[in-house]
């Protein structure tokens, strides 16, 4: 009964360990991507050139290129964060699976020794 429960549970944990890595590789499931800062905030609280006092007219000059750069930078950071999250989750699943398998093996060994000792005593 316990072996029958342990096998699917371990399989589930191993699957859990592998799924986030696959998800990271395909780029799905980006719910867990942490917020990426939109840039440096200036002393006046402005979050970019367009918001800075006296710089409003300059905003059109490089906005297209800047946005593209920002998008690309965001994408790289998001993918990096996703990958690191996936690694952390996989590690948790892996460690827990390892602990469960080791404990199961230990328990079986203890039982076998006990049975052996009992038979020896008889």
């Amino acid at each position: 009964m316990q072996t029958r429960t342990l096998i699917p549970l371990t399989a589930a944990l191993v699957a859990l360990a592998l799924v986030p890595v696959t998800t990271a590789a395909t780029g799905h499931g980006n719910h867990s991507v942490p917020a990426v800062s939109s840039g440096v905030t200036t002393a006046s609280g402005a979050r970019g050139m367009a918001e800075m006092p006296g710089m409003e007219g300059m905003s059109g000059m490089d906005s297209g290129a800047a946005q593209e750069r920002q998008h690309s930078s965001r994408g790289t950071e998001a993918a990096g964060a996703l990958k690191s999250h996936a690694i952390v989750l996989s590690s948790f699943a892996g460690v827990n699976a390892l602990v469960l398998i080791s404990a199961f093996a230990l328990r079986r060994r203890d039982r076998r020794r006990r049975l052996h000792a009992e038979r020896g005593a008889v």
Partner: protein
Amino acid sequence: MNRVTAPRRNLLAYRPVAAVARSRFFPASLQWVTTLVFVVIIWQLVLGPVAAHDNLGTALTWVLWWPLIPILFVAVGRFWCAVCPFGWLSDQVQKLVGVGRPVPAFLKRYGIWIIDASFIGITWADHVWGIVESPWGSGVLLLLMATAVVATAALFQRRAFCRYVCFIGGLAGNYSRAGMVELRADADVCATCTSRAACFNGTEATPPCPLFEFPRTMESSANCTLCASCIKSCPNGAITLSVRPPTRELWFVRSPKVSESFLAAAIMGIVLVQNVTMLGIWTDTLAWIESLSGTTSYALSYTIAFVVAISAPVVLLLAASRAAVRLTGGSTRESFARFGYALIPIDIAAHIAHNLFHLLAEGKSVYTTAVGVFGVESGGGSAALVGSDTIHVLQYLLIALGLAASIYTAHRIARSREATSTSPRIVGARRLVLAPYATLIVGVAALNLWLFALPMSHRM
């Protein structure tokens, strides 16, 4: 004899209470509910919205559960531990693969220090890495705890994690001593028992005491989760459940422990530093530390503030103990251990008062994030359940109550010490020994009142 043995009404004499306690669905059914909620919390923290103010997991953990937990400890002792999802996880792992090794001696001996260190470490990490403000950080913390639960449950007997490792268990143990519910065994009935300690070892139908307590000799509620296993397994009906005045247990601690008194003092420091970092004065404090230390590292500056805040109540308790010993004799270590318990009521009051702000000023976020899971926009507006004036009044009342309870506890400890002492310097010197501790408690209360008067920032 230290204990006051005034007869108290046994709640198990009431049939509905007894029926619930003896039911095989108690506390399992409640544990299933908390486990389901825990799964939702983990799912939200790990895979839900990135911003804390949109995350149901953050709201349920830090706005609802964390503020309610100290209130629960006072009201019903460690009952939370009986329904805690980690307890459920521990039971399942043990059924599945548990090796059942005895708990190592070092864990039994130093478990409380591991708890003290992990509690302090987690509080430090929370601020430096922003665990509370980050759903992912909170998720990782819970997963780390779950891994520790799995490892200890797989290797050791019963709930070794809950008894010797869990930092919330340490907090629960200290606070539950001041709790209002008490489970004990009738010593006269136990003297005639022939069941080979079924209350401790369990029966075929009932599990043993999860926290290794033997009701027959149990004098403290620190490690009783009110799981009712002993009520079910006792063949003689010797277990009693009664209501007692809050803090009563603290008046008669027979073997006070330095580690528990240290935790009581450290908790005060933790509450203080948590308060300070949420106030406007934190920026000035930080600038001052940076100018003193010549560093601009936030982690280092916070660590300095943290170490000072945690050490201050411990050092002050030590100083009060030394002063008391000079006045009336005895040992500083013994006085530190004995009178440290008097800090627990003011600890609880300050802890609840601090978290009351989060519960009442951000409480609506539980609803808004819950409906947000189903894609329902609840609109903007304040997350407060009541106005800030109401919160302030409640905080002041709590501190006043904690102050009175702590002073009274110190007074009862001094009285109890006097009653059991044969030293002529201690006998008749109750007020003298009380003076340094009362000064410390009043100082701590005044500092808390001042901090609560300042505007505080939100978690969500």
